[in-house]
């Protein structure tokens, strides 16, 4: 349960705090974005009745967000965390576009 670099110089302390703030923001906003996009995508592409796909997407979305947040905090560096999250977001947006979510009138 180390609480951070005890006795670190002021400069590195500031860098440390910025890195933590960066990860917290990325986990909150990025994690939610990934979960929201994944949930929208699942609702469109899961087989079976439309309502069933939506129900499954709703139930699964929080697990997806939790996984994304754990990834952000587990990644070795801030850059790697951002890269992973950005990649997931891009793939999800592309898939949503392919599924027709952005066409006027929408999918469905």
């Amino acid at each position, binding site marked *: 349960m180390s609480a951070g670099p005890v006795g670190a110089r002021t400069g590195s302390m500031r860098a440390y705090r910025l890195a933590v703030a960066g990860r917290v923001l990325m986990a909150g906003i990025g994690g939610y974005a990934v979960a929201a996009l994944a949930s929208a995508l699942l609702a469109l592409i899961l087989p079976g009745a439309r309502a069933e796909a939506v129900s499954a997407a709703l139930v699964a979305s929080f697990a997806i967000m939790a996984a994304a947040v754990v990834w952000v905090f587990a990644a070795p560096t801030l850059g790697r965390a951002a890269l992973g999250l950005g990649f997931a977001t891009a793939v999800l947006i592309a898939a949503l576009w392919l599924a027709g*979510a952005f066409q006027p009138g929408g999918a469905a």
Partner: protein
Amino acid sequence: MSRPRSFRQSMAWLHTWSGLVVGWVLFAIFVTGTASYYRTEVSHWMRPELTDAQADPVAAATRAGAFLQRTMPDAAGWSVMLPSAGSPAVTVYWWRSFAGPFHHALLDPVTGERAAVRDTQGGDFLYRFHYELNLPPMWGRWIVSACAMILLIALISGIVTHRRIFVDFFTFRRDRSAQRGWLDAHNVMGVLALPFHLMIVYTGLVTLSAMLMPWAVKAAYHGDLLRYYADAGIMVAGRPPAGHPGPAMPLGEIVARAMAATGETPELVMVSNPGDAAASVTAYFEEPPGLAHLHPQIAYDAATGAELGRVGEAGAATRTGAVMVGLHEAHFAAAPLRFLFFLCGLMGAATVATGLVLWSVARAPKNAAPEGLGLHLVRILNLGTIAGLPAGLAAYFLANRLLPVPLDARAEWEIGAFFAVWVLAALASALYPRPLAWPMALAVPGLAFLAIPGVDALTVGEVRFVGFDLAMAAVGLLLLGAARLAGRRALARYPVRTRLHGTAEA
């Protein structure tokens, strides 16, 4: 955090800090949520004027409809909860818009007028505090949900951090250092009820999922939530208002039809667009036995009483979600299982509390060094939340018995007592002398809970409340036991306080 570290180290860091930042709110959510397992019992106790007279649901519904017609004929909706063995009065709600405000009243099923009962929110206050924190509903729900998500993260990172789950499964070393004792208590409470903790946090999020994650419905239904509910078999399809007024049957007639159609008395009837020519009445029935939270429903035309539709069969995914909501609310649980849920909820609150205390104990200065501002703040907040909230709860119950019955805005006074005593207890606990802070802070709510049976006996004194009073006394004894435990540690250290000052008091 910036340099590369092992997965377990990052997760330990994440567990420590995610747990700390939301710990105090989580403690309040756990305590009020756990109390909500007995929401009906609390409401009964807080409205001693109501007795268990079974009323005729048909006549009661007609009278409630007449009351609502007088009160708000042009409402967007009315809802009438019919009398049952569990709640002998008729609870009515009415609203002009789904954004609120939702007005409500308790009616006497025999007269159809407001019941002669003390003004109180009863168990509903604890229940709503559990997910709205007494804030504007949307704010409260988002804050509670954010805390729940952070708790889910804290649980996952906690499992990763705790490397010897099986070996330490039964370990509680009370004879070692204070820090070791708190760590063991935190682990035992967390691990033994882990299935419950994971279940309760995830299902809580699922309960609010339509608000938290509207994107699936946006993508597949263009945001038409009601159509999704109808398709999924969660609700019966509604219909838009006609825009011109129309006649309506007495509400009891429709209840009678619903009873004839199913052989069961509906729990609740909801009128959409009352007074409109296209008004409809939906009858909600008790959930069939099972875990899922899915109410059978039939919709009727409010003017003719013709059946408009029934709720469809839910598929596997919808049913899974409904089981999650059902598990969270535990309406299905009969008394013994409900008590186990209650116990698990207490263990959840204890996990949060021991985690918070552990944070401050682990960081207490090892010698006579003064504690830093952050540590001081955490310690004060710990005392104020863990010992202050129970004091507020006891005050809420005591106020219900001690405030004069005809008092204006009495329900608000009860809630005021809850918050005022919570704040006072927290402020006082910040001023107690260090070594005695925990025993004194815990003894206050303990004594207050012990006072409840006596006060009840002197003010109301009915045999049917003995069970509730005994439960209150048990809570009081539990708190006093905790105070004694904390006091023994403090006293054992007291003589050598100058040498060991601040080693381990939380």
